[in-house]
């Protein structure tokens, strides 16, 4: 619902141009390049929208960037050249997957850190506890316990405590 709410606010914001994402007149003649353009579009943000890629967005700006991407591809740019061009023009904000840089260090490193750190902590914890168990289990029996055990083994029924 909230997603729809957000999209709804957006519709109002962009003056309700009900144009759809990727218009027929945008599609490139070369299917390979068109596929590359579509893949790139999914990684690029429509900057006036709330968390939409230019591939999904109906905003006029998204259309402009889609056309720009196709223009660069038609001119023979590689995917990374197109990305660099757009970042130079619109800033890092245009990338839906931020690059691994100083300011995104925490973002990228937190998941592996938690997984590895958590795994390590668990492993140490379990090892420490099971060692504790082994230690407790290895304590020699007291003389009293030995006697009761012997009685049990001898088959004299439940050993009575003296």
């Amino acid at each position: 619902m909230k997603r729809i709410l957000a999209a709804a606010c957006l519709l109002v914001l962009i003056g309700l141009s009900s144009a759809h994402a990727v218009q027929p007149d945008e599609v490139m003649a070369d299917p390979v390049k068109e596929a590359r353009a579509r893949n790139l579009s999914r990684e690029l943000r429509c900057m006036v929208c709330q968390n939409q890629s230019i591939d999904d967005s109906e905003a006029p700006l998204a259309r402009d960037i889609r056309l720009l991407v196709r223009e660069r591809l038609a001119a023979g740019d590689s995917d990374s050249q197109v990305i660099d061009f757009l970042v130079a023009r619109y800033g890092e904000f245009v990338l839906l997957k931020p690059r691994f840089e100083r300011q995104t260090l925490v973002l990228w490193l937190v998941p592996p850190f938690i997984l590895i750190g958590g795994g390590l902590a668990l492993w140490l914890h379990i090892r420490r506890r099971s060692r504790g168990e082994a230690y407790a289990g290895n304590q020699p029996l007291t003389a009293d316990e030995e006697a009761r055990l012997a009685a049990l083994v001898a088959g004299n029924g439940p050993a009575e405590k003296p």
Partner: protein
Amino acid sequence: MIAEAGHYALVLALGLALIQSFVPILGARWGDAALMNVARSTALAQLLFVASSFAALVILHVTSDFSVVNVYENSHSLKPLIYKITGVWGNHEGSMLLWVLILALFGGLVAAFGNNLPLRLRAHVLSVQAWIAGAFYLFILITSNPFLRIANPPIEGRDLNPVLQDVGLAVHPPMLYLGYVGFSISFSFAIAALLEGRIDAAWARWVRPWTLMAWIFLTLGIAMGSYWAYYELGWGGWWFWDPVENASLMPWLAGTALLHSALVMEKRNALKVWTILLSILTFSLSLLGTFLVRSGVLTSVHAFATDPRRGVFILLILCVFIGGSLSLFASRASSLKQGGLFAPISREGALVLNNLFLTTACATVFIGTLYPLALEVLTGDKISVGAPFFNLTFAPLFVPLMVAIPFGPMLPWKRGDLLGAAQRLLAAGIAALVAIAIAWAWARGGSALAPLAIGLAIFVIAGAISDLVERTGLLRNPLAISFRRARGLPRSTWGTAFAHAGIGVALIGIVCETTWNSEYIGTMKPNDVTKLAGYELKLDGLSQRQGPNYREMVASFTVSLDGKKLSVMTPSKRNFTTRGASTTEAALLTRGVSQLYISLGDVTADGGITARIYHKPLVLLIWFGPVLMAFGGVLSLSDRRLRVGAPKPARALRGLQAAE
């Protein structure tokens, strides 16, 4: 008059919540049963008053009383009755009222069915519930009062946002809130346990059904919202990694982890501290979700700064509850005794692994959602974290988790044998390999990832079936004996199998939809024919229609397969005059579990229309999976051991003993 009565009922509910916040706790401290029992009456009375308040708002909406701001801004006299009712929670004030209604409902349920709880525990739990309720009543009364009047009432309302005029609004928010708010119960139980400084396996048995219930609703709520977005937004997407979606996914991930750790605690009396922490975290994430969605901080940090009243209030609630509960946890957790021991390879070990991955996944969503906000506030730099980031980070977390799923139920408690479990999963492994080979051959090369993912999904499903086969001895015993054993299996075992299989089913849907989805985007004129995935779609023509509060343009497509006519699909574009807004109503044709999807774009100057046509193979499995998971949850909930509100003398006795 009705508006004032509703407003007053809410004020009374606040008064009751304040009484319930302190009296039962004092009663527990002084050992006064009468004071502790106050909680029961106040919780039920609170439910009554909040329900009256909510009913008042519903009546105002149904009767289109435009002298109330909330009704004027979100309703229209021509709106169909169902949307007049659902429109009550299709706006900020109303949805917060629904939030507290559900909170009061859960409080009332604990009061009504909590007879088998020890008196002190119940008093503490209901007091904590009342703290939460009181905070949110205050929030509504101070910043978001839905009962405000307009001095000069207008004749007509401004209508509900057209995108929300859909049955989805009738189901999705209540389900989601039942999930979100349902986790408040496990939170209250956790705080109560910390206040009492005592926690045992019986505690886990009381908490699990409530957590399970919340989890079932949240699962269905998220799935329902996803399907709604899929057919309503008109581009066939079903998950966008949008912050508001992430806000509901985080409590789901944490809640799923909680379900599993509570299981270990109930059966083996281990992981106590962790289970308490997860209970706190899960509800904290629900609160965080409420903050993210309700404060407007997501739309823009600046919008939040210019009108911060609501946002700051929720932020305050958030800080007090999360900060308070975590400090309480920090000061009391060490006094909770550690429970049963287990080897790394054991059922407990598998469940701990599950928790590790789910928690990491949850943390990933958390940081991905909040990092851009934090970075902008701290440095002013703007970055985006969207679907490509989450897809990339989620896959490495979910693949090992899913590989581990079938092993969990196969391993015995305390100390397991991985090789033995692997042997029992041999059939599932073979099924997975066969599935990979078939998918690979069918796709004729192409992406290697998709067949592997399908193999993984089949492994999970076949693993769930193997577990049942193993437990009923289907292949070793005569059918009659297996049947008897199947009936004798605890329902929670069936529940586990269904829930685990559901994940596999959903994964198949996700992989097929994203990999083999085909689409056509083009301008079509009447009598044009388009071919897509073997289907022929002919545009018969365009027509205009008048709805109750909109006009729509309907396109009619004849769909045929191999020259035989299958059906007629009628996607449309609706124009809502009051708001001047339009929506795209996609047309869906379901074939088995696959779907054809048509949505309309603009009319061109030469009488054609832009059409986007998709063929989405096995797409329905994406939502069928969560439904299976929720069904598994329901089965597990109906297990004798866990049945909510079924007081059993033995259990009550144990509870009393524990209280000594």
